[in-house]
């Protein structure tokens, strides 16, 4: 995969990664996690990142989401240069523009389903029509009857749908999902993927998803393959959304 010059960046690109390097240090030992990745994800598309364990997928996701600092390179999300933004800007970025979905135990156990979503609204400062949005989202994820329940009273699949609703409640422009189906059975995994597909098709945010599961990845518009901290290729555009993903780009070695 070659680097792409800034002038070659396609219009409407939501995420633009150039020469991204991330190294973890443990004393004198340096462990490279990302070795100069370039990639672009177009606005309003669903991209999946696949690869074996330890290849740097989650690191990529966290750097894009402003949770981890890159060692070198550039990550631009919308108009924000994430790699160089100060902590306060990154916090504001996560607060207002990014929704995260994690693999497991990603809800506040002490709060009800509804309060989990309200908390996200409050943190994001999006109190306007908060209850209305929560009602609509819970209906959309099929949990309108469980809004007063606590996460531990829900199945794993239901918990993950609540997490997706929470990621969406602040109306972000980007959803970053780290193995969202990793703890789910195949039925629930398909249900979550269908939900993601529906979100993107419905004009929702850009989704960047990490997954091991080829079946889940196949739902995405594009699949970015990673190995040993590098992006090594891309699979084709999802047929159902080809027209909705004109800006998806890849660079092959």
């Amino acid at each position, binding site marked *: 995969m070659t680097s792409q010059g800034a002038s070659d960046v396609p219009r409407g690109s939501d995420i633009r990664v150039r020469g991204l390097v991330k190294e973890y240090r443990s004393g004198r030992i340096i462990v490279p996690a990302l070795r100069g990745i370039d990639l672009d994800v177009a606005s309003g598309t669903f991209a999946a990142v696949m690869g074996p364990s330890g290849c740097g997928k989650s690191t990529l996701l*966290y750097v894009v*989401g402003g*949770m*981890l600092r890159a060692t070198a390179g550039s990550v631009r999300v919308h108009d924000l240069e994430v790699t160089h933004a100060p902590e*306060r800007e990154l*916090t*504001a*970025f*996560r*607060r*207002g523009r*990014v929704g*995260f979905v*994690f693999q497991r*135990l*990603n*809800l*506040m*156990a*002490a*709060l009800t389903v509804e*309060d989990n979503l*309200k*908390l*996200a609204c409050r*943190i*994001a400062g999006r109190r306007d029509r908060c209850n209305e949005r929560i009602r609509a989202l819970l209906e959309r994820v099929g949990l309108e009857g469980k809004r007063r329940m606590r996460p531990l009273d829900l199945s794993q699949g239901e918990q993950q749908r609540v997490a997706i609703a*929470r990621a969406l409640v602040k109306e972000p422009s980007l959803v970053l999902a780290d193995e969202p189906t990793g703890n789910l059975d195949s039925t629930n995994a398909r249900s979550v993927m269908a939900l993601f597909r529906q979100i993107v098709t419905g004009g929702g945010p850009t989704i960047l998803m990490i997954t091991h599961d080829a079946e889940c990845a196949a739902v995405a518009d594009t699949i970015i393959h990673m190995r040993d901290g590098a992006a090594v290729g891309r699979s084709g555009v999802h047929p159902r959304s080809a027209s909705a993903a004109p800006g998806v780009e890849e660079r092959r070695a």
Partner: protein
Amino acid sequence: MTLALANVLQKKVRSAICILAVGIGVALLLVVVGLTRGSIQEVAQRIQNVGGDLIVQPAGATQFLALKSGVLPEQYAERLRKIPGVAAVSPVVAWTTTFRNGFYVVYGIDPERFSSIGGGLRIVDGRALRGPGEVIVDSRLAAAARLSVGERIEILGSRFEIVGVSKEGVGARIFLSMAELQTMLHQEKRVSLFFVRCTSPAAVKATAAAIESDLAGVRCQILEGLADEMARSMSGLREFIGAITGTTLVVSLLVVSLAMYMTILEKTREIGILRSLGASRRLIMGSVVLESMLLTGCGVVAGYALTAAAVTALRAWYPLLTVEITRFWILLGGGVGIASGLLGALYPAWFAARQDPVRALSYE
């Protein structure tokens, strides 16, 4: 607020232990201070209720009147009576005794002269002292020890008949004839102190000065403000109360700090989630401190309830004890509790806010 409250309610056992620990600290402070101050206040009030304006004691004597017995010549009464500004003088022999496992002050009085100071004893049952072998107890001791008129009791190795019960709150709890107590103590014609009533409140200071000038080696104590004077003169009292306050603060602080620290370790992953949602460090710190404030706020309320229960129990089991808890100490006790919550939460809150969000998310 919702998250902090939900956390408090979710971890019921942790919250209950934390609330109880703060509550016990606050109650300990209030009860100990209340007992200390109450005892001093009560003693001072009883002395003041005798009705005089001054007490005359040997120079350097303690305000705790029973700690020295007959050290002044009884005939000083006549000399005092002649000093301008003095309206009435009553010599008193003060001593202490143990009675039914209690420690009591005994006054040896001349009933007539004692009455001339401020009305004397108000007998509520029986009659006044008339001669040897008779004793009067105050109503609080009578109620606590279930004593009644006509009963015979042993005091200072002699047997006495209770001839009267006086209204509580004047001087001592046990009264007998001054001459008899002097004989028993081998202090004939000697007394512990003199109560002096002045001709007018305006004359008190001048009279005190005149007495001290006229009678070498005596000290006049103005009775107004005696409680404060006694508290000040008690060596180490302030330090004792300070130590109790400090201990309460430190113990509550440690308990709150430990509880919040454990909570934060337990909620590491949730902190990671909050960071991923865009919560600032300040917000996370605020959330931890708020949770701590909720716990300590409940702890302070629990402390007040425990104090009320302890005071009720003390009054029931030890009716002669006086517990005085002023508004100042109630507020201070609450303040110490809240301060412990605030200080105790600071490190855990800082620790929570400093968590690396990615590491927090992968915390098992």
